[in-house]
C-alpha cells in the first residue's frame, strides 16, 4: 500500500510518501494508524499530538473504521486550510 503524508504530518514523519506491505492484523484505517505509530519516533510524533488527523483512502475522505487493503493509497493530513 502507498501511504502519503501532508503538511505538518509530512514534516513530523520526515517523508511525504512510503510504500508499506499491509501489516498483519491491519484491516482498517484506525488499525493502520496504531501500527504506523510504532514505526518510528517521527511517526509517533505525527500521530500522537492530540491534534486532529484526517485520512483519505484512494483520494476519498475516510473515517477510522474504513477498510484498507494492500492496493490502496492512504493519505494522512491535518484539517484543510485552503481557499
Amino acid at each position, binding site marked *: 500500500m502507498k501511504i*502519503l503524508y*501532508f*503538511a505538518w504530518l509530512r514534516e513530523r514523519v520526515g517523508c511525504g510518501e512510503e510504500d508499506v506491505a499491509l501489516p498483519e492484523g491491519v484491516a482498517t484505517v484506525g488499525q493502520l494508524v496504531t501500527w504506523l505509530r510504532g514505526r518510528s519516533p517521527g511517526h509517533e510524533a505525527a500521530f500522537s499530538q492530540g491534534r486532529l488527523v484526517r485520512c483519505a483512502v484512494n*483520494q476519498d475522505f475516510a473515517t477510522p473504521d474504513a477498510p484498507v487493503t494492500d492496493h490502496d493509497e492512504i493519505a494522512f493530513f491535518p484539517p*484543510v*486550510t*485552503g*481557499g
Partner: protein
Amino acid sequence: MVRVVVQSADFDIGAEMAALTSGRADIGGIGSFIGTVRDTAHGARIVSMTLEHYPGMTERAMTQIAEAAVVRFNLLGCTLIHRVGPLPPGENIVLVLAAAPHRQAALEGAAFLIDWLKTKAPFWKKERFVDGSEAWVDAREEDDLAATRWGVL
C-alpha cells in the same frame, strides 16, 4: 461548464470571465470571489504563505464541489482556480466564478463554492513570519460553521 485548475501561476480574472461567458447570452449574473494573501496573521507580519496540496485528490474534490454547486444552484457554469507554492502578501490565492440566469443563484453559488473549498479541498497553508519562523495555519472553526450552513455533500 465546470473548470477546475490547480496551478502555481497567477490567474487572469478577465480571461476566466470571458472563457466562462463567451458566446452565450443566457447568463444574467456572475458571482465571484477572489482570496488574496494578507500581510498579517494573528497580529504578526508575514513575508510569505506557502500552499501545499494533494495532487489528484485536490482536483477530484474541487470537481465534486463544482459539480455539486452546478446541480444545487442550477448554475450555467463555474470556475475554480487555486494556486499552490509560495506566495508573497498581496498575491491571489483562489478564484471562484459562478454563472447563473439570475443574481441570487450566482451569488449563492459563489459563496457555496468558496465555503466548501475551504473545508473540503485538500490544501494546507504555511505562513512564514518576518523573524524567519514558520507555522502551519490551523483550520478555523468558523470555516467549518460556514460550510455546515449548506448541509452535507
